[in-house]
């Protein structure tokens, strides 16, 4: 069984905007850079004291965004709603905190409460495009009839240890951000049946891997994924109205991506934009890109595409 995949809800938690589809649309209509960390008080306000105290920061972000998305879709969580969460770095902060307990006091310094946070527990971990992969996985489950509705998106946090680690490793100049963006995806028929507002439709997805040294960028400028996604959607290249890429300020990776897109789209296709340059590089940006693409397609009547190498 193959079914259409509708986007029926959005939940976003960033330093500048927090809310559902309307909030995200307002930000995208007049975007401005958001690279700040999210104030703790804002997360406490979203979750309440008790829940905020029990959850690590990255979990606070994910839970808050997930709840906002479900509310936005007017859907209740339950047996029928799957979850696919993407992250690049997960809860590295808790891992360091757990290790520090041991290093400070030996075995008695270990916290049984922190240990579970050291496991990422995410269905889509990847560099750069974890959020997009989560959406692809969720859309696939719905399109094949294995799931009726899935909450999917990405989350990452800004962490000082991570920042220094990336600097030590000579990472690119990308500016990292933090936040969580989740989408509610549903089978289009099920969404229509319950009278849900449909923000957009995911018509085709594709993902693939190119030869590159581990943790690095590659040299190939040929990728078939854009063509595969278009074919899956039965859409011609000329109908693309907007392209959201994943450039983030990391010169080497960005250059590679632009060359890949030049080949896939043709050099004349200039309507490309990157939300990562606005909200920083984090897994939530991928889901925000999908929401933005859906909005652009709805406004223009054309098809938008979201990509990320």
């Amino acid at each position, binding site marked *: 069984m193959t079914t259409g995949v509708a986007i029926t809800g959005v939940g976003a938690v960033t330093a500048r905007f927090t809310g559902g589809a309307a909030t995200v649309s307002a930000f995208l209509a007049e975007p401005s850079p958001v690279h700040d960390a999210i104030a703790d008080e804002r997360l406490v306000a979203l979750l309440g004291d008790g829940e905020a105290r029990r959850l690590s920061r990255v979990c606070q972000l994910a839970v808050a965004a997930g709840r906002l998305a479900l509310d936005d879709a007017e859907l209740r*969580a339950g047996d029928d709603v799957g*979850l696919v969460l993407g992250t*690049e*770095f*997960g809860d590295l902060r808790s*891992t*360091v905190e*757990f*290790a*520090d307990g*041991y*290093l400070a006091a*030996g*075995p008695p310094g*270990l*916290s*049984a409460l922190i*240990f*579970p946070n*050291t*496991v*990422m*527990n*995410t*269905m*889509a*971990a*990847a*560099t750069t495009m974890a959020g997009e*992969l989560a959406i*692809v*996985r969720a859309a*696939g*489950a719905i*399109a*094949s009839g*294995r799931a009726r509705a899935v909450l999917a998106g990405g989350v990452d946090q800004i962490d000082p240890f991570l920042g220094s*680690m990336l600097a*030590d*490793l000579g990472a690119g100049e990308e500016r990292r951000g933090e936040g969580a963006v989740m989408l509610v995806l549903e089978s289009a028929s099920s969404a229509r049946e319950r009278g849900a507002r449909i923000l957009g439709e995911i018509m085709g997805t*594709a*993902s*693939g*891997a*190119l*030869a*590159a*040294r*581990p*943790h690095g960028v590659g040299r190939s400028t040929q990728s078939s994924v854009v063509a595969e996604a278009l074919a899956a959607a039965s859409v011609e290249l000329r109908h693309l109205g907007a392209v959201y890429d994943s450039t983030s300020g990391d010169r080497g990776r960005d250059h590679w991506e632009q060359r890949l897109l030049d080949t896939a789209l043709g050099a004349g296709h200039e309507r490309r934009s990157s939300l990562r340059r606005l909200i920083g590089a984090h897994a939530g940006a991928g889901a925000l890109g999908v929401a933005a693409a859906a909005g652009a397609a709805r406004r223009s009547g054309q098809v938008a595409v979201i990509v990320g190498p």
Partner: protein
Amino acid sequence: MTRVVVTGLGVVSPFGLGVKAYWEGVRSGTCAIRPVTLIETEGFRCRIAAEVPDPVPGSPRRSRADRLALAAAREAIDDAGLGVAERRRAALVVGAVGGGMLEAEGWYWPAKRGGAPLCPTPALRSILPYSHADVVGSRLGLGGPRETLVTACSSGAVSLAVAADLVADGVVRVAVAGGADALTRICFMGFNALRLLDPEPCRPFDRARRGMSIGEGAAFVVLEDAAHAHARGARAYAELAGSGMTTDAFHVTSPQPDGEGMARAMMAALARARVEPKAVGYVNAHGTATLQNDRIEARALRSVFGAGGVLVSSTKSMIGHTMAAAGSLEAVATILALVHETVPPTVNLTTADSEVAFDCVPSMAREAAVDCAISNSFGFGGQNVTLLFRRL
């Protein structure tokens, strides 16, 4: 409907390199849980684990877990006889948890104590779980969709379930899937802190069980569209006929007490395979030997299969709980049980818990021609995965 078959197997286990060593180990009921040598254990209640014996192949510049993954994936691909063109289109789905944490600890521990790092800074590049997929994919030329899945102790199993979906949905004809994990200080200390480790080798389903033993390893399989495998003359070990994935949505570490989420995963796998419970002859249980898991899994099994309806064993009694590798290592044991018509035993089991209403195949492997078998994997957060294999 596309049928998905297993055409390649690859393993690095506490019994050493290769599928052959692994099967000989589990079939003979050998316990590979011994004193830990890789990390310091001073001051901990439990000081044993099932380590992969040295040398682990591959460049020492790669993390131990990356090397485990690469060796197992390479064996699986060679076993399946995949050519360059098939690899270029094949998907890679990896279950991972610890990533290169062992090396990252070797960098961080001494640095924090003011000493010289045991590992160079570049070792940190492999700290995150997706490092395995990057290394395996780039070294073995796998150019299809590449995904890393982290669902704690069910990561290895979920990698097979998702890869099978990619094949069944027609996204790819061939997928390489599996899990890998090396022993790490964080994992060893964490389970010690939770007081979930037995100071002696674990005793799944035993009345006197006191917790789990941890281990390390990697296992990969090649999953393939049956028609594609047939067309290229590949040998198929078994069919991955169904999978079920559910979440308890109950607690961060504890399973739902009534086992409803686990049972739902098993029922989903049966439904997808269109197999009745009575057709299943063997269950490779999650069977960690913690008080909670074994009791709750036994309840879930009873609710699905009825009392005494199926042979149940835990291969963790021999190789420990290998975390992200567990689901795929146990899937390989389940496939080989079908192929060799031999059910691996549960070792260290003296007296079964009164709540365990099954023959747990104590101590010695048992000859049994089984047509369908399932492998259960349950992770932190109540992430339940069941894989159902059918003999060909």
